[in-house]
């Protein structure tokens, strides 16, 4: 890795923001203790679930759209090398520059150097999961470049020095009162003045953000975005949004830098007809989101530019090829980041997104994060595949039919094989006991002794390592006699089978 660029922070694990500091159960316990958080989440996820079902139910061919979306994504992954090369040539042919980044650090270095080359001290950013994933804002900051998030929720999170907790609504864990306090405390205009007339009405708070950001849109020369889709055959990039901050960033600055995961490519222009129907209805619960922008390279006629004069596309791996190599898990790369699975998940809607540690929370995060990073020994991401009840609601709503429960089970197997030494030792012991009738009978007899430790027929707390079970649920005490003893006694007493 080049060290020519000074000031690049060491990012945790080399992957950016894909790992939390704590295991899921510990992080979740903390979140569950926060009453305000649970109220905010219950309200928001409930509201968005209702909106989604209303607009999905009115589409007569929803299942056909899902089937097509899923097939396009599977086809894309199977032909990924040729499609990436095709996309690269198409973007270059229309005046764009394509860069490739193996990991978060390399992507951050590319963007920082590009912005630095323009002499920029500031960049404006469109909400993007990829740049959250790689920790771009921190990397730019370390190089003396201020990145301003322009999506309202991202701005709230950034001002509060917090982390996003939802893919679509990053500040879903905050209510209006909390947001008003964040603005009053941290929002300052060019002259260092705080916003005035700030109530806690969402319209007034939105107006404050509009005033704060507008002047930045009109004068900042460099913008950074992600991409929802990129069409290989035409080199067309697509950003789906609501507020108009995306249009501002994609249209006004002289230089546009787009960071995109390699799995976001789709083969043909026509494929967008599927995703432009699936995404908004699944995501915000609208028939169509307010704004979708598409561009192919740089635009303009007769020397008058329409949009940026310079366009850079950064194609990011950062673990995607690792996920692709897993034949069961690779379907996680179908994800179009709609967040429908978060809103229906009984786990997410109680713990919120921070408990997952990674940029990608909820059911999709529970499979995507460990697939991207792998699960080494003592890896906090090894706890994520267990952060689910396997109820399957996520699979039902997924617009591209990712079978999240099956991937969860698959990853649980991997996590168990690679980690938890005690669990492996216990399983080996059990296998030895159960493989002989004599040993099994003796063990069952021995277990009866454990009855003396139980109260009310249950164990409420056991010492480690068994506390792993009793931390979360009671353990029933062994019965007075086993089934085989009962059966033998029944035969002796002449009570044969009816």
């Amino acid at each position, binding site marked *: 890795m080049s060290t020519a660029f000074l000031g690049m922070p060491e990012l945790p694990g080399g992957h950016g923001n894909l790992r939390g500091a704590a295991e899921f159960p510990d992080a979740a316990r903390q979140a569950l203790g926060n009453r305000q958080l649970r109220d905010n989440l219950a309200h928001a996820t409930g509201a968005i679930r209702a909106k989604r079902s209303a607009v999905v139910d009115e589409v007569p061919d929803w299942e056909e759209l899902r089937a097509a979306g899923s097939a396009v994504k599977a086809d894309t992954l199977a032909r990924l090398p040729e499609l990436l090369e095709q996309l690269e040539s198409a973007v270059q042919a229309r005046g764009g520059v394509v860069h490739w980044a193996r990991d978060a650090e390399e992507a951050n270095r590319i963007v920082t150097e590009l912005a630095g080359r323009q002499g920029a001290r500031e960049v404006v950013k469109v909400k993007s999961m990829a740049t959250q994933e790689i920790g771009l804002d921190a990397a730019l900051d370390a190089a003396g470049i201020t990145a301003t998030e322009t999506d309202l929720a991202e701005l709230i999170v950034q001002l509060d020095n917090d982390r996003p907790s939802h893919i679509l609504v990053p500040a879903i864990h905050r209510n209006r009162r909390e947001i008003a306090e964040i603005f009053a405390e941290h929002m300052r205009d060019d002259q260092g003045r705080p916003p005035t007339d700030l109530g806690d009405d969402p319209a007034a*708070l939105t107006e404050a953000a509009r005033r704060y950001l507008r002047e930045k849109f009109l004068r900042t020369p460099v913008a950074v975005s992600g991409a929802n889709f990129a069409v290989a055959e035409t080199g067309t990039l697509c950003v789906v949004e609501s507020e108009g901050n995306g249009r501002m960033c994609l249209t*006004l600055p002289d230089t546009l830098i787009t960071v995109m995961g390699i799995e976001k490519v789709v083969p043909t222009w*026509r494929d967008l007809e599927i995703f432009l129907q699936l995404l908004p209805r699944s995501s915000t619960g609208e*028939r169509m989101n307010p704004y979708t922008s598409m561009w192919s390279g740089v635009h303009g006629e007769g020397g008058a530019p329409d949009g940026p004069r310079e366009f850079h596309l950064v194609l990011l791996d950062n673990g995607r090829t690792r996920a692709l190599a897993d034949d069961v898990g690779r379907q996680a790369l179908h994800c179009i980041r709609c967040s429908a699975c978060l809103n229906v998940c009984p786990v997410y809607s109680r713990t919120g997104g921070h408990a997952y540690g990674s940029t990608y929370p909820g059911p999709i995060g529970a499979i995507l994060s460990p697939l991207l990073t792998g699960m080494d020994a003592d890896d906090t991401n090894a706890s994520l595949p267990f952060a689910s009840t396997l109820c399957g609601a996520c699979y039902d709503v997924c617009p591209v039919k990712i079978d999240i429960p099956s991937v969860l089970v698959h990853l649980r197997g991997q996590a168990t094989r690679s980690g938890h030494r005690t669990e492996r030792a216990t399983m080996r012991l059990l296998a030895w006991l159960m493989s002989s009738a004599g040993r099994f009978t003796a063990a069952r007899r021995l277990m009866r002794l454990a009855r003396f430790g139980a109260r009310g027929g249950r164990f409420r707390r056991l010492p480690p390592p068994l506390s792993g079970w009793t931390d979360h649920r009671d353990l029933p005490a062994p019965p007075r006699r086993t089934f085989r003893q009962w059966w033998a006694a029944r035969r002796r007493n002449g009570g044969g089978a009816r």
Partner: protein
Amino acid sequence: MSARSEILARVRAALADEPAVRQVPREYRQHSRDAGTADLAEMFGERLAEYTARVHRATPEHTPAEIIAEVLRARGASSAVVARGLPARWRPGTASIGLVDDTGLGIGELDRTDAAVTGCAVAIAETGTLVLDAGADQGRRAISLIPDHHVCVVRTDQIVGTVAEALAALDPLRPLTFISGPSATSDIELDRVEGVHGPRNLDVIVTPVGC
């Protein structure tokens, strides 16, 4: 090894099991049931209005130019920017509204302009969506973005039923903007607030061909 060749090599290695290339089943609807009927314009207007855009129907007696003048006046607009290719018949004749042809106006000048008047490339009935493609009657993207009031004229023959029909009618090599209502956010408690960075007011005039 360059990042490019290394990533491509990793992708090829990850696909060593040669997953099957699947034929994409396109059994979803290409066309709307109401294709080619007056119901399509009706549906377009209703669905766009649900996003709180104001929708107006022009007739030979109440022309687009007259409605444009009315909606600009109603919003207190005294200036409106237009592309040079905006048809003469859509330009209000009243002196009270100053139409400014876009001759490469600066961002500051656009910011001081009250409104923008454009045509569109395609409109989608099922989703209530306008699509602009920087055509002669629309101009560059900044025009319909910076002024706080966007007035858009849609000819009934530009309205299609489905998203699929719209994409088939569009050229992907042009800069495209899909607009479904005024800018909006639901980032605070999922409470929808209209009017963030894009135009806070959207007036759409649906007109028969030739008006």
